[in-house]
């Protein structure tokens, strides 16, 4: 089967400083890949580059996504094509309710992909259904996006957006950081419910906890801008016991 995502010899950085120093990574439809690594390894840079964050620049290499040259696409075009990034630090948008924000986002994506607009009733039905997935009450949708949210609420809101936008490739950037056990479970259940043979995900994490709840197909270790090890869950076990120092490819 063709790869959904294919990263070849990717070099990228910010403000002239190279952070990713030659990444190769292939993900097939339906696969979940975990990327683990110590602070400063380049995990968040990889997610930012995949989503097209403008302050990061790619100096070498290529990324192909569903047969398209991803690097030629704007951030919103990537979103329309089905890439979703769950932010490590979700951003506040005062005065804009979750409902309003999601209505705009869903409408923009459907317009771009040529799907018919949802009626208000259809949209609200979908929203209610997806909110139940992350155990949110109806009142929550009236709150301003990420304003005054707890850490757990922010991450659940990210997963809600993911569920509403129905991406082909979800990138969860340290979605587990700062979550208590209950919130972690809700987030993991939400992600698992969205698994399908066509949908893939990249889970970026420091710790094994989340991988106990969302079982990955492949685990990669990222250190100093390079993938130094690739394997199954046993790598995560090794990291849990020995730390990242012991893994050098």
């Amino acid at each position: 089967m063709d790869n959904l995502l294919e990263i070849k010899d990717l070099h990228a950085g910010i403000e002239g400083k190279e952070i990713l120093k030659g990444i190769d990574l292939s993900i097939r439809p339906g696969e979940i890949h975990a990327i683990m690594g110590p602070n400063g390894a380049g995990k968040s840079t990889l997610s930012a580059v995949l989503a097209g964050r403008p302050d990061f620049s790619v100096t070498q290499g290529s990324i192909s996504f569903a047969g398209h040259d991803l690097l030629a696409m704007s951030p919103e075009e990537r979103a329309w094509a089905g890439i979703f990034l769950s932010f490590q630090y979700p951003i506040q948008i005062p005065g804009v309710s979750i409902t309003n924000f999601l209505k705009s986002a869903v409408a923009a994506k459907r317009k771009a992909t040529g799907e018919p607009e949802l009626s208000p009733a259809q949209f609200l039905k979908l929203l209610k259904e997806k909110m139940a997935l992350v155990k949110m009450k109806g009142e929550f949708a009236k709150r301003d996006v990420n304003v005054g949210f707890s850490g757990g609420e922010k991450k659940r809101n990210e997963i809600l957006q993911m569920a509403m936008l129905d991406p082909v490739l979800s990138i969860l950037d340290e979605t587990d950081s700062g979550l208590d056990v209950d919130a972690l479970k809700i987030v993991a259940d939400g992600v698992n419910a969205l698994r399908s043979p066509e949908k893939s995900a990249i889970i970026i994490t420091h710790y094994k906890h989340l991988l106990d709840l969302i079982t990955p197909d492949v685990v990669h270790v990222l250190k100093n801008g390079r993938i130094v090890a690739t394997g199954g869950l046993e790598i995560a076990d090794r990291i849990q016991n020995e730390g990242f120092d012991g893994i050098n490819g």
Partner: protein
Amino acid sequence: MADEKDILAAAVERDYSEGFVTEIEQEFVPKGLNEEIIRLISAKKQEPAWLLDFRLDAFRKWQQMTPPKWGHLSRLPEIDFQDIIYYAAPKSDSDRPKEIDPALQETFDKLGIPTGEREVLAGVKSKVAVDAVFDSVSVSTTFRRTLAEKGIIFCSFSEAVREHPDLVRRYLASVVPVGDNFYAALNSAVFSDGSFCYIPKGVKCPMDLSSYFRINASGTGQFERTLIIADEGSSLSYMEGCTAPMRDENQLHAAVVEIIVEKDADVRYSTVQNWYPGDAQGRGGILNLVTKRGLCRGENSHLSWTQVETGSAITWKYPSSILLGDNSSSEFYSVALTNHYQQADTGTKMIHIGKNTRSRILSKGISAGFSENSYRGLVRMNPGADGARNFSQCDSLLIGDNCGAHTFPVIQNLNPRASVEHEATTSRISEDQLFYCNQRGLATEDAIGLIVNGYAREVLSRLPMEFAVEAQKLLSVNLEGSIG
């Protein structure tokens, strides 16, 4: 990778869809301003002697005055007041035909302003009575009969002078004196038309009343005069909208609005100001130099101002309230958006005279491009204003690096038992916010529109429904091409 600034630079320039000109035969008075011109305008309108005297008195006062220079408005040009035509009217209107001229009908249709009652009654438009003013004259006022059944007078100012001279004479210049300021004096000398509204005692006006101002003729100024009187225990929601053609010249708009609110009466005055703002290089646009003031004369009277200012090259405007009656209250909710080379100096004055009077100011400035946006406000607690309270909040939002936002709040508290609070914030639309929205599939301009509407939401939510929708669209449209 396409940089977001490139995307913005390539984005279409702001489309001022109201910028068309109506081809219609008009009559003008000769260019320039002197006593003869004033006599001519007054004669055309067949005014009584007292009104001509009022105008001439204003003119003489104006001649002694100089334009105020304190506004933060570096692009306000020296205006040659002899180079302006002070009266322009559609020709067919001179004998007030029963039917509105088809060309005018079409103009207001194009602007979405109902000048007929049929489509409103058919439920196409929401029920609003409209006074449509085209250059210097009111061309149509709807629902007058329905309103008259409740004793409500809603008509053009000129007609009020003919039909209700006692009311006009009693209240005209009672809130904004003739010599109040340079532009108010000019307006008092040459005002042509506008709206007049009287709500009798105890009457709740059954529908929103609205004035729509349209500048069409080139080389002219518009000097409308609006007078609103809410008698004891009455209530009214009033809306005002305005547009003008796109032209390379600056055109002057110097209006005066006076509102009298009696005991227990409630007036809500909403404005969506969308005068032509000039082009992206700062050529042309309306000079909007306006005096608006309300007098909360009776106990428990209430006046709220809500304004969304997106148009005009220059805005100089301070809708103000004098809280004379005990327990009277007023609010000022404002969103002022400036883009390209627009400059706005706008705010309010809250003058607390009565006991336990309350006021609230919420001002949201949005600056983009090379524009300058200033909030200027005065809160004054007079010695007798025991227990009076004011709370002011002035927020500024900056888009891009070349614009300016300023606040000039003045507080005069002459009563130790009165309280005044003021808060101010300045923020920017961050790259992080834009990227977050982009990642969710919102293109940058849509993202800016969404963020700006969120920022302004608390003010927009005060507008009547139909106006709120229009205002939201305007905020998004007027920011097109705002970064780059």
